């Protein structure tokens, strides 16, 4: 199977795990989508370093775009890539993030170190974020 196919299957599996198997339904929660938006920004930065410098290189046979060229950075945007990385990486990252949070929330729901709960932020952060 190609990387493209595997990521699509992966997304379907994590959605099924969230709604049908673990029933965590984190994909319906605002806290998930806000934290995922933050994660995806930093994924683009760090993955851009890994793929832009050619630390990790991809085969054109496995992705929508073409192979990482030898001794040159891949396309920044376009040719199936976003910030040097194959767009498949976004779906791979989605699977990694969602699976992680499903298990984390499921464990908490089942009483594994539900406490101590997170928060509250320190005063200096509250002032900076303009909350409370």
């Amino acid at each position, binding site marked *: 199977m190609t990387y493209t196919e595997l990521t699509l299957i992966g997304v379907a599996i994590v959605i099924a795990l969230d709604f049908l198997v673990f029933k965590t339904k984190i994909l319906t929660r605002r806290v998930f989508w806000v*934290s995922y938006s933050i994660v995806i920004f930093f994924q683009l930065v760090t993955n851009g370093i890994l793929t832009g410098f050619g630390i990790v290189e991809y*085969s054109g046979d496995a992705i929508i775009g073409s192979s990482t060229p030898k001794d040159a950075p891949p396309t920044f945007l376009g040719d199936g890539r976003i910030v040097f990385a194959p767009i498949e990486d976004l779906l791979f990252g989605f699977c990694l993030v969602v699976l992680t949070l499903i*298990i984390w929330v499921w464990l908490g729901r089942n009483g594994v*170190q539900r406490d101590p709960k997170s928060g509250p932020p320190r005063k200096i952060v509250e002032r900076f974020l303009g909350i409370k």
Partner: protein
Amino acid sequence: MSKFAYVSVLLGCILGTAWLEVFLRTKVYRRAIRLVLTILPVLVVFSVWDAYAIAQGHWTFDDRYITGITTIANIPLDEILFFIIIPICTILSFEAVRSARNWEAGDEQAR
């Protein structure tokens, strides 16, 4: 750029999120058992994916930029560390948003 290029990016991820534990009191590292029990299955699943992708040639690594230490199924140590560190950063981000906004995540009480 060196053999430590890949792990330097991961180090940046760990250092870049560490302040959340202190300033947003995420208490993720303090819940070490829950953290480890979350990481283990994720590490197994994504190592299998990685092993398949490496075997099929979906992706390769430039030897100049990774440690050169290989674990099982030709998976570089750098990748194993990735599948440990990224889940930690993910949970820190998630708990930081909860800390700041008090939104429900579904684990507040036993069902």
